[in-house]
């Protein structure tokens, strides 16, 4: 019998598996995807948010614990568990050498796409390179990796893990277990259930695009909740960016983002603006726009810019609808031309002269319209005009299993001694809502390692850790 069973195949699962193995346990890892799709959403990630008191290898300046904590507090609006959040933050300062030991490479800041070289360490080649490195190291360390192994239920005995039951009928027993099987974002049915029907009589979830893996169906999450595991979070809360509406339903990843939102205006299907596009830099507001679009009729919106903005934002994967007049643009986007022209005219009239600088929070703002645009407000008048359709793109969901600083799960209020949880399945403890780039990987790495070590301890290996 294997000591530690790890269920899941992304970053948190691999961290747990490697850490359990490092702690002396024999480890089996079950990845529900086939090998070519392994790694879950981690394959789409790019960086990890790291605290640091001074410039450190690939990180510039400093990003102290408290600033990190304040950033998190801001985006979550207080919906967070401070002790757990601080564990993830502190771990993020020191985990990089451990990651490097297992073949992960970080890269020096180059063109820096997201204003993040101070706060985030970038993986050379991105998340899939990280996942590949972890899998290679796991194989080398003698971890038994099984692909195409979807776990449908957990066999418990008096709140203790006994065995996992697989879809293909296998039963795998272990002395302890780490659940790291991700959220439920690719389970459209569950999303639909969570979001219900909006005031326009539409199921918003029908219009969602899933930015990541098709394999995060939340099968195990649902099973654990039904089995009495304590849950945290709201099922409608998720990391949700506004992405190009023409993106594939699954696995569109980063390249589908639309980076020009803060340079122009965003209108809904009625050609009306609905939110301050210039509230903050796009990277900072990145994860709120998905939700904003989700709340619009038919969950569709259009980012509209004029030719002045070309060359000032990340090139989009799909070219914008290019038009020489607003009439033509409206017709291409399927918007009412008169309303769109009015919206643009109203906006243009409200733009106050200022010094445009899209690299700082500049003083170009509107006056006298609602919603206002507080920065980078410049008139939309120089053709050609460009329009990009936007849809909510779900990255991962926050509903998860309640845990503590040992990463253990709780069944009807009682801590399990040998069943642990890591990654997206527990990120909701820290992320009640909102998102700040790279924190998902920080949580996954911190709690993956804690869960792995404690699972090894529960199986009779080495020592336990709280953080």
């Amino acid at each position, binding site marked *: 019998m294997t000591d530690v069973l790890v269920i899941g195949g992304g970053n948190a699962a691999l961290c747990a598996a490697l850490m359990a193995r490092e702690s002396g346990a024999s480890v089996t890892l079950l990845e529900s995807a086939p090998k070519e799709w392994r790694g879950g959403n981690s394959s789409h990630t790019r960086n990890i948010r790291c605290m640091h008191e001074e410039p450190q290898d690939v990180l510039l300046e400093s990003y102290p614990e408290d600033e990190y904590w304040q950033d998190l507090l801001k985006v979550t609006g207080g919906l967070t568990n401070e002790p757990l959040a601080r564990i993830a933050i502190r771990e993020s300062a020191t985990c990089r050498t451990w990651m490097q030991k297992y073949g992960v490479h970080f890269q020096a800041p180059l063109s820096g796409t997201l204003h993040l070289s101070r706060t985030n360490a970038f993986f050379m080649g991105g998340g899939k390179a990280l996942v590949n490195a972890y899998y290679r190291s796991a194989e080398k360390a003698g971890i038994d990796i099984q692909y195409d192994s979807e776990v449908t239920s957990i066999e418990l005995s008096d709140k203790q893990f006994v065995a996992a039951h697989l879809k293909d009928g296998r039963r795998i027993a272990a002395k302890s277990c780490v659940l790291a099987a991700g959220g439920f974002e690719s389970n459209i049915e569950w999303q639909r259930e969570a979001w219900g029907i909006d005031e326009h009589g539409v199921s918003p979830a029908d219009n969602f695009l899933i930015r990541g893996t098709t394999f995060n169906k939340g099968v195990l999450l649902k099973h654990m909740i039904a089995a009495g595991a304590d849950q945290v979070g709201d099922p409608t809360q998720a990391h949700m960016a506004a992405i190009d509406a023409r993106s594939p339903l699954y696995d569109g990843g980063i390249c589908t983002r639309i980076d020009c939102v803060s340079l122009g205006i965003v209108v809904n299907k009625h050609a009306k603006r609905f939110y301050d596009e210039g509230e903050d830099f796009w990277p900072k507001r990145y994860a709120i726009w998905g939700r904003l679009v989700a709340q619009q009729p038919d969950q569709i919106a259009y980012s509209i810019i004029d030719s002045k903005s070309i060359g000032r934002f990340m090139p989009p*994967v799909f070219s914008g609808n290019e038009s020489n007049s607003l009439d033509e643009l409206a017709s291409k986007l399927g918007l009412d031309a008169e309303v769109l022209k009015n919206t643009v005219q109203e906006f243009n009239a409200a733009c106050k002269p200022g010094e445009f600088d899209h690299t700082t929070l500049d003083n170009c703002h509107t006056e006298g319209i609602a919603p206002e645009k507080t920065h980078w407000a410049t008139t939309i008048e120089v053709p050609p005009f460009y329009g990009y359709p936007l849809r909510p793109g779900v990255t991962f969901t926050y509903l998860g299993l309640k845990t503590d600083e040992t990463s253990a799960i709780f069944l009807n209020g009682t801590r399990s001694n040998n069943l642990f949880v890591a990654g997206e399945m527990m990120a909701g403890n820290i992320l009640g809502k909102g998102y700040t780039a790279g924190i998902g990987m920080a949580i996954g790495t911190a709690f993956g390692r804690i869960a792995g070590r404690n699972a090894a301890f529960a199986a009779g290996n080495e020592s336990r850790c709280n953080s």
Partner: protein
Amino acid sequence: MQQLNDLIQEARLTGMSDQEGEVDRIMTICNACRYCEGFCAVFPAMTRRLQFNKADINYLANLCHNCGACLHSCQYAPPNEFAVNVPQAMAAVRQETYVEYAWPKSFGRLYKNNGVIVALACSLALAFFLWLSTALRENSNVTLDGNFYAVFPHNVLVLIFGAVFSFSILALGIGFYNFWRNISKTGASIAAIGESAHDALTMKYLDGGHGEGCNNEDDGFTLWRKRFHHFTFYGFMLCFASTSVATLYHYVLKLDAPYAFNSLPVILGTVGGLGLLIGPIGLLFLNLRRNPLHGDARQKPMDRAFILLLFLISLSGLFLLVLRESALMSYLLIIHLGFVMGLFLTMPYGKFAHGIYRMAALLKNAVEKRQPSTLKLGSD
């Protein structure tokens, strides 16, 4: 997927081949992702553009070293529906550039069946030297004593090889010049030339960007591709140096071959020859184990023909050295010269040219890096 197909069909494809269109499609995806920017020069060069014209694509394709790192790291690699395979698409365009920039232009088609061309060139060259040796030999009872010129007079060899080699250098030079003119609108500073020479001579972009090397059969990294390339390249250069020194000996110092085993030409040739055995064997071994997703499978005959030719030149050369006092000398000389001639004949129309166009691309990269970017994407 419809959107992706639309991308290929876009207006800026005017004048582009299907393969160039595919690189355009892929670069558009990569430019929106940029996770690979640390691996090699292709991606930073890409980020200096919002759109890609034909010249950009030819340049980027020849800047790509087919290391495979971006493929294994790619979240959009097959089976993802974006089906991004940078090394494969770039390799296909690279061959098109060789064809397109070949001089004389009509000879570009020789690339298309390069394996056959190399075999033919070698066979004909061997037959030619066999015929020549009998035609020239007046007295077959002469003792050769390791004297190559008793088989082929020095002047005859100089004339034949000089003519073919000069033509090859001219053809490659014109190809380089036309390619450079197409991809670059400016001249190159000394610093840029220095940097590109450094990058070419160290094969910087086979180190994976992190020093652990590039990919071969899987997502693991290996430095052996870089090492075997180095054995091959420097082996070739040492052999070339050996011939050059021997030429100086002959004309300047009036010293005739055969040279002693401890003479400079023989030492250079021996060391180079060993490099040119080890390098090609290694490259062939790696080529056979290469992940099928890397590069362009249709070009494997060209790659392997070139690798084998270098190996055979070196092997026959070393045998010739060791057995030059024996009765086999004249046969080994014929064989060796046949292979060398095969190489000289096919140099501007075979795998050899990849180094030439890559140097032009590296130079362009070194020049471009020094120019300010016109884009202001709101990055750091």
